[in-house]
């Protein structure tokens, strides 16, 4: 069976949280554990989706040769084609329609194989890199993204908004928890676009509210945390998770 909507997904989750005390945030160590597990699982599924990878990063770039036990890093997904197909084609980057529970999951897996997308020659392709970085301030994961043309020229925000309309300054406020700004990537030290986390913790807490709060259990499944965070954030930038990631619980 295939679960295509977030709502249905959460009804089969067996983890229960001590909702009163958990504020929706995670520690840096927890983020790393969850991220590594997330990346491993994604890759092991061998799906048509390009894999997320964990990129270890030394805390001090000038100490790259020294191995610091306390590894930091980020999740990376790069070279994703975000160009919209021609008008005649099905809009393959559209967000999941909650009504389409049963039909579309397997179709969607095939559709979002962007690597084989065929474009007419006059339509230049745009690509995007996504990094999931831990924020020590907000204690939640944060999405950074960068878009560019096939010749490497960086895209400006209004060009990105054309490909990922959910990122636009008009639509993001609708999600009530995110807006996009240009900031320095914490590790790469270059200008990237960042999806602001203010409100992520409240959102994450809400997500975990489904379940029997009468019997609270303090079992935090960290992989699930990242998965659920990603389910929400991914919708904003048009990325989805393979159904197998959700099913395997």
């Amino acid at each position, binding site marked *: 069976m295939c679960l295509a909507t977030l709502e249905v997904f959460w009804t089969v989750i067996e983890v229960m949280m001590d909702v009163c*005390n958990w*504020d929706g945030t995670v*520690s*840096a*160590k927890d983020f790393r554990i969850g991220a590594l597990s997330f990346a491993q699982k994604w890759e092991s599924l061998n799906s048509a989706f390009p894999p997320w990878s964990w990129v270890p990063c030394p*805390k*001090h*770039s*000038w*100490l790259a040769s*020294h*191995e*610091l*036990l*306390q590894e930091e890093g980020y999740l990376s997904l790069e070279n994703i084609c975000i160009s919209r197909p021609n008008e005649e084609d099905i809009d393959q980057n559209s967000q999941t329609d909650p009504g389409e529970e049963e039909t579309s999951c397997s179709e969607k897996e095939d559709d979002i194989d962007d690597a084989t997308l065929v474009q007419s020659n006059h339509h230049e392709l745009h690509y995007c890199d996504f990094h999931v970085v831990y924020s*020590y*301030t*907000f204690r939640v994961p944060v999405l950074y993204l960068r878009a560019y043309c096939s010749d490497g020229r*960086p895209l400006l925000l209004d060009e990105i908004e054309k490909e990922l309309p959910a990122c636009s300054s008009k639509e993001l406020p609708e999600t009530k928890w995110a807006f996009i*700004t*240009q*900031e*320095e990537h*914490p590790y790469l*030290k*270059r*200008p990237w676009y960042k999806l602001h986390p*203010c409100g992520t913790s409240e959102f994450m807490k809400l997500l975990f509210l489904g379940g029997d709060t009468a019997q609270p259990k303090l079992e935090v499944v960290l992989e699930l945390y990242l998965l659920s965070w990603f389910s929400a954030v991914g919708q904003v930038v048009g990325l989805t998770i393979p159904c197998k990631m959700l099913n395997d619980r």
Partner: protein
Amino acid sequence: MRKALQKRMEAQKYVWEGAIPLQIHLHESQVTTLPPPPPALILAPRIGYLPLLVPLIKPHFRSTLPPGVDTIWFEYRGLPLKWYIPTGVLFDLLCAEPERPWNITVHFRGYPGNVLIPCDGEDSVKWSFINSLKEAAYIINGNCKNVMNMSQSDQLELWHSVMNGNLEAYLRVSSKLKLATIEDEYTSLCSSKSQQGSGETDFTGQVKTGRVPVRLYVWGLSEDFDDLEDISQVDSWEKISYVNRPVEIHKEGKCFTLHDAMKNLLPEFFSDESLSDSKLAGVDFEDVQKIPSEDVSSNKVVEDRGQNAYEHREACYISSSAEIKLIRIQGIEPKLEIPFSWLVNNLLNPDHFLHICVCVKVPQ
């Protein structure tokens, strides 16, 4: 208590009045007249930002600029300067041996967009400042509602107070934000009337445990040096780690010092022995009476302490030859024994962050 506040205002006044003398040269590629224009001499507020000086700089060079659109940026010996870092911090970080006046170069063309985030003048700087303030509010209070709910006029007044270096106006508006400070351990140690009784808080709402907004800039050097003048220049931002993490303070009866804060932020530079709760050599604060207080969020504190201790155990100590050579805050090099709370209550930037520049020497 009033005397303590007066002293705090005094220290803050010094910080706000601090300035860096700049000698700003126009980059040769943009000089179109002969003889080339003399450099502009400007006294830049420490707590300010370089783009805010443009109204003073531009008229000075206007007659010699080539025609076209201006995209202004600054550079020190080839290193593009990040405009969202306060001027004083840039100076403390990049001028190991303080250079007075500080010779920097201004460009009106060729903005390095691959390295620097675009800057559209005052608005960009204001946005960056408000954003930092939100971050600080989140760290201190657990949410940024107070900043988000500021009225337009308050926000403008706050921003103008920073631009104009008007400390009184700043304190007037920022006090409405109710950003809790941490207890001033220095004052309570000095004063004979240090015991205020349990549960009493003053109007600033002091808390005993919490997170402090800190921005740490760590410059790593592989060479040893006796004199700061001998250090080679920072030629790339790759040589500087930017550690934007709050310091978590746990009150355990003894004073939380700058040394403790550095162990918290850079555990990799301290040996395992010093990570344990041993007394700091030469300093004994056990005489301070414990003042019982309500933990605002006890669960979080316990969780944070656990995590902190865990990260200390996990941290790899680099080697005995790695050491912190220099710590600078607002141009001052404080002793490691100084109570961290004093630094926080007196040396903050208007964005409510404590900006700390550190120079470390590492083995090859």
